[in-house]
């Protein structure tokens, strides 16, 4: 168990996950502020868009895109949070618990949800990109990736593995 605790990978993972979570929160707050600013300054933004040759609908597309990206960040935050909780249990030397099986299952659903949210983001991004070709280079990407779907599948399988592992360990604990 001491080897688990002294494993540098766990420490690095925990720090990286915490930093990632902070960045997600900053991103969500930033998007919230951005959406609020868009709402408050609607006329200014619309005028600027029209001035640069973009259609008036671009305003609504951008307004819709921001909460979708914020949603994606929220899902990613929950994913990182679950992963960090799992890392903590490994650190404590007790990873084969039913809670971790549940966490992995949640992560699998989150990975799947991220893929679903990426579809409208991708569609909107393509539309905005086409509509604003004259305005300048705008890069927003979002698409369903095979890797993401594979990740969800792996996580679902790992959740089953952990569930069985937890049951086996429980059995072993009651054996004298």
């Amino acid at each position, binding site marked *: 168990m001491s080897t688990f605790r002294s494993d540098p990978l766990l420490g690095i993972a925990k720090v990286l996950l915490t930093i990632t979570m902070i960045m997600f929160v900053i991103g969500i707050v930033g998007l919230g502020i951005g959406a609020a600013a868009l709402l408050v300054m609607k006329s200014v933004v619309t005028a600027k868009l029209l001035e640069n040759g973009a259609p008036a609908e671009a305003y609504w597309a951008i307004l819709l895109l921001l909460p979708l990206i914020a949603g994606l960040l929220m899902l990613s935050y929950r994913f990182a949070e679950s992963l960090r909780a799992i890392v903590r249990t490994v650190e404590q030397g007790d990873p084969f618990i039913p809670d971790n099986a549940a966490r992995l299952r949640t992560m699998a659903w989150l990975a799947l949800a991220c893929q679903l949210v990426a579809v409208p983001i991708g569609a909107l991004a393509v539309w905005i990109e086409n509509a604003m070709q004259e305005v300048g280079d705008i890069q927003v990407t979002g698409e369903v990736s095979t890797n993401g779907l594979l990740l969800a599948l792996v996580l679902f399988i790992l959740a089953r593995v952990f569930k069985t592992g937890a049951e086996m360990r429980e*059995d072993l*604990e*009651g*054996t*004298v």
Partner: protein
Amino acid sequence: MPIHVKLDDLLHARRMTLTELAERIDLTLANVSILKTGKAKAIRFSTLEAICRELDCQPGDVLGYSAGPE
């Protein structure tokens, strides 16, 4: 559980304490206590063998079965 452990009676008959048995069969007192109180889910053959050796009895003397609710 329909399976019950008769360790209490055996220890009483042999005038042996739980601590003494735990030391002799090389098991922690906590685990022997779990076994005695019927909270154990399973027993290893090695543990059963050690108990039979130290208490000079048969596995049937240690474990009993009575039909009843699970």
